[in-house]
């Protein structure tokens, strides 16, 4: 909806709004740009620009610790995204489409991980794993250790809720009559889900999966509590370096992480665009004339 009638163009208020907007964009992008530019600096000292070079990127590729951290990050992100997308989508369907006893309690349980701060979540999972490892040792003589498994289990624990919220928002916008129409046309429950509901909520599911992937690749606090010796993710490893100081190597790793984020954004935008037009067509097809 346009409100060009409400605000006269080029009024002083309008100019101030535009000025503020450009300042905010400068605030958003200047730090990122400085970081990217300095990652191509030859000099050992971050603050002094000498000449452009790819030296630090070569160093990143040759750094075993960074490469192993990237590997752990990718494994954890893949596992936690797949599992939490499936569980989160099922949660959204269960909460949005059905009525049963205990539903409200389940609803609360799903929302809690979103409003709990990282630090509390980290403390909870650390004590939980430490305590259950003790119990497992006493009961079965089995001594698991912190590592990729504990990190993945923890990431799934906070990702389910975010996927559920995103998918649920999409489900809430759907016309429930479409599913009823499928049922009226003798589709089984599964057919109705696969042919009607799922294609319509697919953008929500992909959006939830991308959010889960991003949160998993971003997490520092929870992961640093449940990671084991020799198995840290890239953000935790970088966090350790960053606390000690600013180096050109961190600039290069950071730039690579930014590029990864940009790729995810591009995928997300591209998918939203195509799926929006596809869904629009489908909705037109299904719309009774």
């Amino acid at each position, binding site marked *: 909806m*346009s*409100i*060009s*009638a*409400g*605000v006269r163009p080029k009024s002083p208020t309008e100019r101030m*709004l535009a000025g503020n907007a450009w300042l*905010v*964009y400068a*605030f958003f*992008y*200047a*730090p*990122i740009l*400085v*970081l990217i530019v300095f990652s191509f600096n030859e000099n050992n000292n*971050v*603050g002094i620009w000498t000449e452009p070079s790819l030296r630090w990127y070569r160093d990143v590729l040759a750094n075993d610790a960074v490469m192993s951290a990237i590997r752990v990050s990718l494994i954890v992100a893949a596992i936690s995204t797949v599992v939490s997308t499936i*569980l989160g989508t*099922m*949660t959204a369907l*269960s909460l949005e*489409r*059905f*009525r*049963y006893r205990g*539903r409200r309690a389940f609803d609360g*349980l799903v929302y*809690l*991980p979103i*409003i709990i*701060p*990282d*630090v*509390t979540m*980290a*403390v*909870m*999972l650390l*004590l*939980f794993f430490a305590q259950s490892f003790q119990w497992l040792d006493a009961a079965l003589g089995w001594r698991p250790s912190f590592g990729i498994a504990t990190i993945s289990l923890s990431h*799934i*624990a906070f990702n*389910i*809720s975010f996927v559920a919220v995103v998918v649920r928002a999409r489900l809430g916008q759907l016309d429930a009559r479409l599913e*009823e129409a499928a049922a009226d046309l003798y589709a089984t429950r599964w057919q109705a889900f696969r042919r009607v509901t799922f294609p319509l909520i697919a953008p929500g599911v992909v959006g939830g999966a991308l959010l889960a992937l991003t949160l998993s*690749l*971003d997490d*520092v*606090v929870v992961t640093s509590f449940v990671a084991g010796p020799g198995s840290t993710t890239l953000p935790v490893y*970088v*966090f350790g370096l960053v*606390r000690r100081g600013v180096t050109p190597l961190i*600039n290069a790793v*950071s730039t690579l*992480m*930014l590029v990864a*984020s*940009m790729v995810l*954004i591009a995928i997300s935008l591209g998918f939203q665009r195509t799926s929006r037009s596809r869904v629009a067509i489908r909705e037109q097809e299904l719309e009774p004339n």
Partner: protein
Amino acid sequence: MALPETAAPELELDSRRAESRRGFLIGLPAWAYLTIFFALPLVIVLVYSFATRSSTGRTQLTGWNLDSYRRLVDPFVFEVFQRSFFLALTTTLICLLVSYPFAYYIATRGARLRNILLVMVMIPFWSNFLVRTYAWKVLLGSDGPISQLSQALGGEPIRLLFTNTAVLIGLVYGFLPFMVLPLYAALERMDWSLVEAARDLYADGWTAFRKVTWPLSRPGVIAGSILVFVPALGAYVTPAILGGARTTLVGDYIVDQFLAARNQPFGSALSMGIMLVLLAATVIYFRSGAKEV
């Protein structure tokens, strides 16, 4: 659901029961997962917060007591909580003051420009938080670009890194998109003809804003404030990178109890404390959100 109208009442009841069982079963895997990996850990933290720390740093679960909670009202601990609270509140207010006109500007553009402007907000929103915080460490360092610029202009080197101001800048930078997006959503779906109606009834621009636009955008204000305040209060990464050693905040204080001081009961009590503050904030949010519409 789609039963014929003539179905017997018992049959309908049966199918409704089957339906609710199906819904329960679909939710069951996630429910079980969250019970084991979220609810149970929460209970364990609660139990630990009543436990005792032995002289070796181990946690003894026998003999529950309230010692850890008593320490929460120590002057030093209280000061840490107070400092974090005010920093989170200041962050939220600055984000609101900057974001409101910003979101208003985006929401009042034409569809094409609006989409481009919105994508330009999404990029920092989705970018890695750690990297974005680290960028400020580069910028604010004593040999960083800002300090160098000041020296080139004949001024003093600026020492901002490792101060509360640096933490505040980092928090605002980190959480600003969380404020912009809900505000934009609220302003974008607002019925702007109401503003026009107010103007037609001889309200000046300021009155129309105060009486129409602001109340209608309040759900966005509340949602954005919660989304900024909650992570800002528990922030750990930002103060750890940009903050100094002298100004402890709740987030790093809790982490210290586990990784350095090895006082798990006290750390657990702190975690419960911060969670209660945030739950209270969220309840207030849902209350005032419900009053709208």
